[in-house]
């Protein structure tokens, strides 16, 4: 099944942190022609458990197959289809932006508005850290682009369901 378009979905995956588990997930997506837009993974507070947040695209049928196929992987403990639950999500971006005499003030104003942080300063560049949902990151990128973004590194989305522990 090759997916050309469709809606974006965020999926949470709780996995046993064993060798190869990420390869199994990524291999599943590439092998079956599913898309991965972003993926983040890190260990949780519970030892041996890693939480992965993955953003994919596809119609309902594809999404349902993705969730089922993921559930079938032996090392996957739980899959959350965030299409069905409310969730909070954040991502962080490091943005290196041109900061010459004339533009510094403008950059700092934007930093202020977006509650971003300047984490590194060099003669010609500022490196900013901004955290937020996708919309916020996109918005600051658009503004900074007019001043001159040199490089950018984004973490991709991390997400948790809003209510009880899952």
């Amino acid at each position: 099944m090759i997916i050309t378009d469709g809606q974006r979905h965020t999926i949470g995956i709780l996995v046993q942190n064993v060798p190869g588990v990420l390869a199994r997930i990524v291999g599943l997506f590439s092998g079956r022609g599913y898309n991965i837009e972003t993926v983040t993974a890190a260990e949780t507070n519970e030892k041996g458990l890693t939480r992965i947040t993955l953003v994919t695209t596809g119609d309902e049928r594809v999404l349902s197959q993705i969730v089922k196929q993921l559930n079938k992987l032996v090392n996957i403990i739980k899959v959350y289809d965030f299409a069905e639950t409310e969730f909070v999500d954040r991502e962080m971006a490091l943005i290196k932006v041109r900061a010459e005499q004339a533009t510094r003030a403008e950059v700092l104003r934007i930093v202020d508005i977006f509650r971003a942080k300047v984490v590194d300063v060099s003669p010609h560049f500022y490196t900013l850290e901004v955290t937020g949902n996708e919309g916020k990151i996109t918005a600051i990128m658009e503004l900074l682009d007019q001043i001159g973004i040199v490089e950018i590194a984004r973490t991709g989305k991390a997400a948790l369901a809003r209510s009880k522990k899952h």
Partner: protein
Amino acid sequence: MKIRGAQILFECLKKEGVEVIFGYPGGAVLDIYHEMPRHNIRHILVRHEQGATHMADGYARATGRVGVCLVTSGPGATNTVTGIATANMDSVPMVVLTGQVPTALIGDDAFQEVDIIGITRPCTKHSYLVRDVNNLASVIKEAFYLARTGRPGPVVVDLPKDVIQAYADFKYPKKVDLPGYRPTVEAHSGQVKKAYQMLKKAKAPLIFAGGGIVISGSTEELVTLANLIQAPVTCSLMGLGGFPATVADKDGGRRPNPLFLGMLGMHGTYQANMAISHADVIFAVGVRFDDRVTGKISTFAPNARIAHVDVDPTSISKNVDVDVPIVGDCKNALQQMIEIARNEPIEGVGELRKGWLDEIAHWAEEHPLSYCRSQDVIKPQYVIEKIYELSGGEAIITTEVGQHQMWTAQFFRFHRPRGFLSSGGLGTMGYGFPAAIGAQVAYPDELVVDIAGDGSIQMNIQELCTAVCNKVPVKVAILNNHYLGLPRQWQELFYEKNYMGSDLEGSPDFVKLAEAYGAVGLRATRPEEVEPVLREAFSIKRPVLMDFHVAREEGVFPIVPPGKSITEMLLA
């Protein structure tokens, strides 16, 4: 007391009840071979690792137990890939033990190092690289558990040489610890009820049964249900034998089962393809709606509401939208449904079904499975009918892949589960012969016949040596059309008779080849020689290769042209 990894391995295999290993040695597994004679496990030395995997697969399909094979690292491991993928597609429980270079060398491109876990990841149910001898026992336990439970499948266990050489205490775990693996066995009773209500109201119900029936051992339940609700049954290739094509007669013979419509799909029977296209309710059990079954998906079963049972949730609503999904073991779902059907029988079901069953009978009469008989050349279908007749339908039949496979599915009337072993999902030429050896190892006294093509048999012909050396008296019936017959038929029908690449003229003399290996070779070139050759072969308690020179350009019919609806069958 600490014992070596190699010994731990065998202690585990014995705990799992393993009685035979199909294997081939090499540097990385010599410690395992060194340990082997001290344990009461039979070793069948193969001639190619692909053969080992198909033998383990044939053993598993014939018995329902987990098949085991053992190979060395690098090329030994890569040679198992086709066999693993074959088993994975057809849900066959198998544990593949591969040697690996010592852990300290992994990643350094050591001699005969290959990342077999990476290579086989997409075609295994699960896999393990054992990095610590202290985990060996629990890994083996989990591997067997995973292989045989839920939807069965192959599990690869990669064993670095130093792990096998290291010492540890041996304790076989009582339980597996797999928090992410909980297959749903018990079907949801509400869903089963819903499915039954749908069937109860149906005017033209049809049961579509697949390999899940065979795997879960629910033939009896399926027969009971079909009889209770008087629903006709069609099978996928993998389902053949799961519902009896014939039933025992009073006089000891067998007669066609009136509720059985034969196989469905590309080479399915006319009545099966027509029935599914006219059914108003389909109860699908243990199938996955493969494209060889559905034909053009948008026109598949246009009038039907579908209830679908499978233990693997990914099989449900993958290719075909389903109205009542039921995740669970086929046996469990069928048992629940039988109970409901007994409590709430369909009033006057015999009378009610008459119209539908008559309609199907009419289709069957209109276009039955048939072929033009001949006095001059051997028809391949005739050989299959004779094998059926002479074995009373009791033989364990394996096939390769090609026309001979489809004719076997059509003309051998399988009446029991695990009597038909064929590579359905992957369509692996070269499967049938080693699979037959595996089945014969499990059942040394039964008649096991590989119905083969002249092309396929050459893909694992080297296993003749394995059969001879291990005294495995398998029979091979080559339906020799001197063609890669299936591609040739497609070229005839869809590629302007351009037989590029499908002419096999120039194959070896199979009789002499058999003799060279120390097996018996027999040949028939005329129809009247078929029966004597078969009789002779079946009376010999050694491996026999039979070379039947059959009509070269015979076709498999019906055939649904690729991309067409399954009602658009070419009938001759």
